[in-house]
């Protein structure tokens, strides 16, 4: 018997951790993982609201968010591999020239 605000606060904390990770981390892959963390936090609040309003469309939307996250993960990882091949580094600070 957990109140809704607890789930929302947890979702907010996950989202904030994701944003923090996105801002302070320098490794491209870790930045990407923070994006996934943000998406997960949002998923949690979707499911919590679906439970509150007894509307299953919240859960269906979580499904779509997951699909989009999967597609974005695939393309993003391909981009990371391409960047690594040309710049030889995974540090975001070093990828600071528009040409090699």
């Amino acid at each position: 018997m957990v109140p809704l605000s607890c789930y929302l606060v947890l979702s907010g904390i996950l989202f904030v951790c994701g944003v923090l990770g996105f801002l302070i981390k320098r490794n491209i892959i870790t930045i990407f993982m923070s994006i996934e963390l943000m998406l997960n936090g949002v998923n949690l609040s979707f499911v919590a609201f679906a439970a509150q309003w007894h509307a299953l469309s919240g859960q269906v939307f979580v499904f779509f968010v997951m699909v989009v996250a999967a597609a974005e993960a695939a393309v993003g990882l391909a981009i990371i591999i391409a960047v690594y091949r040309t710049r030889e580094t995974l540090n975001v600070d070093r990828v600071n020239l528009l040409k090699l």
Partner: protein
Amino acid sequence: MAGAVNLLAQSHPINSALSLVVVMASLAAEYLLLGAEFVAAVQVIVYAGAIMVLFLITIMLLNAGAEERTNGSRIAIRIGVPGVATGGVLIAWTLLHRADRQAFAIGALKGDPSDIARLLFHDFLLPFEVTSVLILIAIMGAVVLANRPEGVARGPRKDG
């Protein structure tokens, strides 16, 4: 939550990835508590079981090492952490402030697969088809991006 904080605290991306897996697994448990069993199963299969494995494979393939401190990261930490922390506190305060509304008990909303399927294929059919096209485009994009510049990727050197 501990997993999320750990993701920030770890310097080696592999440890961050593993703590993210922990986060996702515990989120799946939360979904089960909220009665969304199908979503929990899909979360484990898709997110924790496939996407994170992709992350792990990429980290291993690129041999990512521990992070290093550069100028950019110091600036980001000095400005970013307080800013985001303020934003987070604002969000939390707003949410908790309105908790004096009747804090209802979350029973289980049965997320039966057949009900979700009914919604998915009747009301949300268009988004469903559009996401399938999206995945197709993402696959094509990933294959094109990851190709070696001198042409189609060669097969493995070993034979037999």
